């Protein structure tokens, strides 16, 4: 069974605390500690972004789309989609910072990193033992890492124990 896990969002569990952003940045630093990260010459950037609407808080991340516009638009061949896992990845050695993906990502999940001249986006913390750092760090379980089925089951469970509304 291919591993089609990704990061899902339950927006109304998000309090906007931005712990995920910190965890993401630290995970993508050289030192992997917050103290180390802030003193790095090129401080790391987070890939997940907590966005706020009127009555909405949304920790938005790459959704590893079925039909990834970023992949179709990439003129350096840096973006690829793993047919097994569905993961959309950027080969940083090939990215030239042309911002084509930034121009077409419908979610704004591909962001320009002007300091490095390259795009940044979620890499699902590939190779990290505990899975994506943002999910592990979220104190309110607004982020979920798993398959679509696992996510639906998680939502049901959250409803049953009354953490999220029964109406949805």
């Amino acid at each position: 069974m291919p591993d089609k896990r990704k990061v899902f969002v339950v927006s109304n569990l998000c309090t906007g605390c931005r712990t995920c952003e910190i965890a993401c940045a630290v995970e993508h630093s050289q030192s992997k500690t917050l103290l180390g990260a802030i003193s790095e010459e090129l401080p790391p950037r987070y890939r997940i972004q907590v966005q706020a609407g009127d009555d909405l808080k949304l920790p938005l991340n790459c959704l590893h789309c079925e039909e990834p516009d970023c992949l179709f638009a990439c003129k350096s061949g840096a973006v690829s989609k793993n047919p097994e896992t569905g993961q959309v990845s950027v080969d940083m050695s090939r990215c030239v910072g042309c911002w084509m993906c930034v121009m077409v990502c419908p979610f704004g999940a591909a962001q320009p990193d002007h300091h490095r001249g390259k795009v940044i986006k979620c890499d699902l913390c590939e190779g990290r033992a505990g899975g994506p750092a943002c999910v592990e760090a979220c104190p309110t379980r607004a982020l979920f890492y798993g398959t679509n089925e696992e996510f639906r089951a998680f939502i049901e469970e959250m409803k049953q124990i009354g953490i999220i509304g029964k109406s949805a």
Partner: protein
Amino acid sequence: MNYVIIGNSAAGIGAAEAIREVDAESAIVIISDEPESAYSRALISYELAGWIDKGELTFRPPEFYTEKNIEVQSGQRVVKIDTSVNEVHLRGGDTVPYDRLLLATGGSPQKTGVKGEEKEGVFGFRTYGDLQKIYKSVKKAKEGIVLGGGCIGLQAASGLHHHKIKTTIAITSPHLLSQVADPECGDFFQALFEDNGIKVKTGVKPLEFKGGDRIETVLFDDGTELPTQLVITGKGVKPNTDLAQGTKIEIDWGIKTDDRMATAEPNIYAAGDVAVTKDRVSCESTVNAVWPCAYEQGRIAGLNMAGKKVAYDGSMRMNAADFFGVSFISIGIVKPVDAGYESHSYFSQDQKIYRKMVFKGNHLVGAVLVGIVDNAGVLTNLMRKRVDVSTIKNDLLQGRYDFAVMSKLIKDQMESFQEPEYQEIVVV
């Protein structure tokens, strides 16, 4: 089934990859008149500017063709399509039979029509071949002139500048980027280029390229004559439609296609810079010669060639670039032609930020972003889906256009947001 694809760039590769998603077995032949393996035309300016290493222009790995079981005939020119027997004729006399044929023949730089254009040292700037010729001239050149103030022209100028050439951009219009941005945005970039040591000469037409065999000066219509050893012309691109001659394929500047990228000739499709498609924002038939559209059109053509029925929702005018560290993205209709449009712009010289939004009725139809280009794709998506943005218009004008803002529209206009990804963000 025999698939034949003429053209080995974005549209051609997009088609080949799409065909292989559907049909793992049938023969795919890509024919290209360029000797190189698939490379990214759109990156030659990046190489000239030293942003990427020489020879790093490939956008698929070397093993791509063998892995996908695609035969490539490089350096071969198709001279004729014989639709009576479904064959293409190569220059050397060989023929290649097809069941489905894709014309992804791209475009060629338009001639300037200026006297002396054939002199050595006057170049178009489109292919790897052009780039190699420019490299040879770069070594001997002290001064260079770029004719054209669009994205390619500006990138070419940055490239010459990188090679320590004293560079002048000369344009007929009064402002840089005049096709894609407002005068004040153009003037901002002019100041940026001048600050970086590139001269900009506006409102002039070249009258003659002078010299012997080699270019020595360019004479302009204001009487000035600038010495130069290298000229790059950026007058835009003309679709390569020659092969359509003698077929039922309809030409209107480019090759006319339907919503499946099919031409009027059975079993022949067209995609990329050669293809006329419907612009999904302006609803006009046009050639949108940009990489993302080319790949997507190739993909749609490929899927349909392989028997899937997939409709193309139309192309979009869009471009992205980065000049001296200042990012630039332009999408949709940015120069409204009549009073039916409403434009708003915001400009901060200090912060190097410029932003323009163009509306028609309740729809966002165009945007220009300079400096901060984050979330540009959200705007592209709003235009592409043609959704009513009236409830978030104020947000847009304030520069707030992230996904959270767009999500306000999703509930009310659910029918426009059917992709699975929208269901994965659960707003309970």
